């Protein structure tokens, strides 16, 4: 089986999708000859031509707004936004139209499109290049939000997102683009949106994470084994809709939970996960649900990035607190 990193598996998925569907178009800044600033679309314009892999003028509102028109004409736009922090000029189109056209037209028109964007910290990037504002998008009814944490999932989730009849925001953790290589099947496969993944089994505590935090949580779990602590890990993968069943099942087994995310704490997706758990598994809880998150501050760069980004030590400390509550 071929081995690839996340950026390669995303490129692979985009190539497969372009080959499979003549109506699929890629729109973005520098996506053509350059192949995108992270090289996710490298070689695709050469293969499928500039009419299908389109270098857009530098204006995100044009990208999302034009994608709406294309979707209405029956095309399948896959938009690349250079960094999640640069989606805001297109936010108006997203929140006022992409998410609501099906609703307003009573189902006459769907908005089947994918908006891909790198997100998150961990590579000492700059202001707005390392934010983790997934909550904004999760909060918009009518939109689905997906965050892969490994090359295999990235391909399967992206193909599922492309196939989905509704708009999907596909968030790619920048720190994981080239972090690991693993076996990724060459053929087409899909990972259904809304299904979380049990990454590790354990009896003592459930750790819930997504995207760039998954490898950090995994490392913490490995280190905690030395203290005879067996953590279960769930990678949510799909933030909306999200897999309540798998989480509730796990919580009923372990009775203890921590949720880890890079985003600022207040109104992060962790709050939603915690609320859902107490609604559905309150009597199984042995301790309060703890969150390990970024602080309520603008994502710092350079020297302070690691202070804000949850790391193994902060996670281990939270685990001990929950276990000894």
């Amino acid at each position, binding site marked *: 089986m071929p081995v690839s990193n996340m950026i390669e598996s995303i490129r692979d998925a985009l190539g497969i999708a372009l080959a499979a569907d003549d109506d699929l178009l890629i729109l973005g*800044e520098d996506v053509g000859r*350059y192949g995108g600033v992270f090289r996710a679309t490298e070689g695709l314009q050469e293969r499928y031509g500039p009419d299908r892999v389109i270098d857009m*003028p*530098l*204006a995100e*509102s044009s990208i999302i707004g034009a994608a709406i028109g294309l979707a209405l004409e029956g095309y399948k736009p896959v938009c690349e936004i250079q960094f999640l922090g640069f989606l805001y000029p297109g936010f108006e189109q997203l929140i006022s139209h992409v998410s609501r056209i099906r609703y307003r037209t009573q189902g006459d028109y769907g908005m089947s499109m994918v908006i891909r964007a790198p997100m998150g910290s961990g590579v000492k990037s700059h*202001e*707005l290049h390392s934010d983790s504002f997934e909550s904004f998008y999760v909060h918009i009814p009518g939109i689905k939000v997906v965050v892969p944490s490994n090359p295999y999932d990235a391909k399967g989730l992206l193909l599922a997102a492309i196939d989905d009849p509704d708009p999907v925001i596909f968030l790619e953790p920048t720190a994981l683009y080239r972090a690991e290589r693993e076996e990724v099947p060459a053929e087409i496969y899909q990972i259904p949106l809304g299904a979380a993944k049990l990454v590790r089994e354990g009896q003592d505590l459930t750790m819930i994470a997504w995207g760039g935090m998954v490898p950090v949580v995994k490392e913490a779990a490995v280190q905690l084994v030395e203290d005879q602590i067996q953590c279960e890990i769930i990678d949510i993968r799909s933030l909306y809709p999200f897999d309540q069943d798998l989480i509730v099942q796990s919580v009923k087994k372990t009775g203890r939970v921590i949720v880890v995310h890079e985003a600022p704490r207040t109104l992060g997706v962790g709050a939603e996960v915690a609320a859902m758990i107490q609604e559905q598994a309150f009597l199984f809880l042995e301790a309060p649900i703890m969150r390990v998150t970024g602080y309520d501050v603008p994502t710092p760069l*350079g020297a302070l990035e690691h202070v804000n980004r949850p790391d193994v030590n902060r996670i281990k400390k939270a685990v001990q607190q929950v276990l000894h509550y």
Partner: protein
Amino acid sequence: MHISLGLTDEQVLEMYRYMLMTRKLDDRMWLLNRAGSIPFAISCQGHEAIHMGVAYTLNHEKDWVCPYYRDLGLMLALGQTCRDQLLFAFARKEDPNSGGRQMPGHFGDRRFRILSGSSPVGTQVLHAVGIAYGGRLTGSDHVVFTSCGEGSANQGDFHEACNFAGVHRLPVIFMVENNKYAISVPLRKQVAGESIAARANGYGFPGVTVDGTDVFAVYQAMKEAVDRARRGEGPTLIEAVTYRLQPHSSDDDDSSYRSRDEVDLAKKRDPIQLFRNYLVEQGLLSDDYEHRVIARITKEINEATEYAEQAPDPDPSDLYRYIYATDEGR
């Protein structure tokens, strides 16, 4: 030429000194980045003539500047030092631009009324019109300069800013530094009409295109624009055409989208070289003088590098500072 424009010999020599300083500092940033000492470098090579034309027409006591990341030379000529820039590049606590919070090249300095900007391109253009409108209300005659790239001029914010400034005849100068590329995307894929300046017609104010490698061409267009603005006659759009002599940033590999021949050809019109030719022709620049200037600049940059390398990072306790007004000011 310079005399007829009202520039003295001393002023043009000083401009040349700033241009050299800009280039040497820019080169140093690349070097530090390649050595792994700083995470990112963004270059202004090819834009230096624009910076001088701008710096020498603005009033440094009152005018505002809402720049973008290619305006290093302008920052130096306005009063920022090599040390300020190196502290910025190393993201140190003492960095006057943002205390290590901002991306290199995203200048901001209250001392010189340089407005701190953020990464989303073109957003600063609207701030300029707001400042100008405010100045009108308070009865100030300050002029507001703002700049962006030709790619960024396609953002909605740019249009909105021009439109508002036109309606209110605000004292704003919109400078589009057209270096032919927006990262990898060439001009022809950004705009069909070729000219950005021509848009000004629709906004109801003058738009001019100038050779952005020619200090005097920029100076002259700027001077007219500043004078008009100060007289209350409204905005001007200047498109200064040049070429980006380096990759977009240290994260870019420009060989994948433009030929070396094309870049080499553009380097023949390096604005610093062109300006130097003029000074030599005029008998203003001697080898001896130039050597001394370069030695001084090199020394300054070396010392600044050393200083910035050893300067402390922001403290973790800084994370929560200056987010709300309840925090102490600076």
